[in-house]
């Protein structure tokens, strides 16, 4: 139940966080630490790849909400990608697509960052 991992890598100058497993109140601190680390390193272009994310609770959603303002204030963003239909539904019910860029694939999200720079 509390199997959760965050893998970090780079893709075209953008930081990508790969979420694997179950994101709830118990495991949310791991994601928090990861994003906090990126902010501390002044890496404000963040894509969260949810390909292997099996579940997200309101606590997980709250993590994004906690940092988005700060990231956007530094001309950055947190974009989400590769969601399974079930997970996308959770975001969609709450209206997240109107607040965040949620793309089908990571490459689309990265492209958006590149395009913005231009």
């Amino acid at each position, binding site marked *: 139940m509390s199997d959760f991992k965050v893998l970090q890598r780079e893709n075209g100058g953008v930081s990508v966080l790969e979420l694997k497993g179950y994101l709830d*109140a118990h495991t949310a601190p791991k994601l928090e630490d990861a994003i906090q680390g990126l902010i501390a390193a002044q890496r404000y272009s963040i894509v969260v790849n949810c390909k292997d994310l099996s579940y997200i609770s309101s606590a997980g959603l*709250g993590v994004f*909400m*906690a940092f988005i*303002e700060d990231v956007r204030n530094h001309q950055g963003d947190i974009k989400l990608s590769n969601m399974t239909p079930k997970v996308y539904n959770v975001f969609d*019910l*709450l*209206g997240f697509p*109107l*607040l965040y860029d949620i793309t089908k694939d990571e490459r689309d999200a990265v492209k958006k960052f590149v395009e913005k720079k231009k």
Partner: protein
Amino acid sequence: MRIRRILTLTGAMILMVIVVALDLVRSSVDFQLSGLIVARDLMVIGSFSLLYFFLELSDPSKTENVVRRMGLILIAGVVVTLMMSAVSLLGDQGSFEAKEGKLLPLGFKAVFLASFVTFGFALLCILLFRFLRDLVLYKRRRGTRRNLIIQMVLMAATGVSTIGLDPLDTSVLTSVLFGLTCAMIVVNAFRLSWIVYLSKRGKIFTLVYGFFLFSVLTVLNALSHSGLVNQLLLYYSHPVRELVGLTLLFGNVYYGMAFVSTLFHLPTADAFERKATEITSLHDLGKLITRVFDFHELIDTVTAMTLQVCEARECWLEIVHRQRDLTKGTADANLHASFTEGYWIQVMGMKNIGADEIEQLFPFGRQTIRDLLIQERKALVVDDVATDRRIRVSQENRTRTGSMVVVPLISHTELIGILYATKETEYGFFKDDVEMISAFADHATMAIENSRLIDKSLERERLVKEMSLAQEMQKRLLPQRLPQLPGIQIDATSTPAFEVGGDYYDVVHLKGNELGIVVGDVSGKGMSAAFYMSEVKGIFQSLSRIYSSPREFLLNANEVLSGSIDRRSFISLIYAVIHLQTGRLIISRAGHCPMLLVRENEIGYIRPSGMGLGLSEGSTFAGAIEEFSLQLDPGDVCVFYTDGLTEARNGNDEFGYERLVECLSGMRNKDTVVIKNSILESVRSFTSGQPLHDDLTLVVLKWCGPGG
């Protein structure tokens, strides 16, 4: 018991009277009947035996108050000595005529005197022997009792061996037995274990009493062997005379040994007494811990005991708090930050020293022996305060001299306190003192732990009560009764995952014959979610009466909530208004689960676009909220719920939206209460009775038609 005493005493007295009478007769008439003589001797022995038993029954042996009993025996001895001296000096030396080994009394006076003297000696010897027996048997070892019994048997045998003998005769047997008895007396005279346990005062008294008893018994012994007294005793009873002699000898030897032994014990008497006090104190402290719950009282007792037992000049205890444990903040005036970071000190239980003095001696802001102890965590002994480098003697403290001990209180590898004790003299604390103080410190540690655990337990009890109260109160925030109105059937349930939860539902009868239904879910669970839930109720109860349009309501609710909700939290809400007469349903969804609509020919979800409350404000939010309008047919059922239902788990599987649809198939014509229970039953069986991991809410509404 009383009867036995009366019998023995009267028996003794009767026999004595008979003997005296016989003697009186014998003095005038010359009797040669040896049988009668033997009988007389036996009666004498009998009478004194009965007297012994009488005293045994009246005054059972007590091992307490040895010193006092010694004093009493001494007094008795002195009295008897004086009496016998008087008899010896003043009595008529020619009271008896020695003839052929026999003693013939000349006159009644001699007979009476013989009885009197023998009685006096015998009584003293009985009392003396009983006391000696108690002393010998005190803290006995294997064989002690046996040795004493052997001595008693030998004494009796010596006495018995003279039965039938003429007063002035002796026999070899008697001498041999006498010798053997003396040997046993010496053996038993080594049983002096009662001396060690006396207090120092007791030992000094024993020394004095022992000396005088030795002297008195020597005099008595000499008296009993000389002149008139000897004759009086022999005349009255040879056996008794032997026993008297042996008992006096026993007393002599024993008290002589006791005197010498006590003399050798005196140098260690002080230390022994201190040790005994230390052990008693530890006992008392141990008992106190289980009885006293007042923390301050306990600490006070610990320092008081340390002061007393170690004969310290000053004593105090410092409680150590770690930074992380200070939930109440450091505003407490008694709390000082120590030089070592992260440690806070609370001074308590001060004896003979004040807080100011302590602060002067070991300032909290500077590095002192306190910090050394925090680091080393073992007892520190300062033999000379004035010269020890660990104690920086400031200007004010230059007059301070002596020694001190600083001992840590450690519980489960954590330092929770420090115990200090000082003495006036240098080198005042030795290894056993430090061990003693450490033992006290250990007790104090247990007491402190106990007290803290009790506090925690009481606090937890209080919190449990508070939670229970919160649960009660929250239940009341949900509708106590659902409105019974013509045209609708409605049933609902809500179960929090913990004691309190973040789910909310409400039903209001609005003006214009409309019914408003709201179901909401605060992100998260527990206490914080419950707080938001009650805020939502307030907002709903007031705004729903103002804004009958669901969308308008949500827009205004979002504005209110955005002010107080924190960044990470949000609230999902669904609000539907039904006109009871027309069946028109208007619905808006703020990020909540879609409503399930059960029509005659289809079951499906109504999902207007929406966004959770608290996620954004202004135009973004307004643009996200859609308002749906639809017309219900009579008998249509609307199901509202929270994600606690659809996300109910069985292993990795969720109940889901499809299963909910399945639940409703064929159920449209049932009563709402039946539908509700059937859904709940499905969920329960799906989760196989596992507890819910999220709050679950379910509202089932059926529109029965106009005037239905």
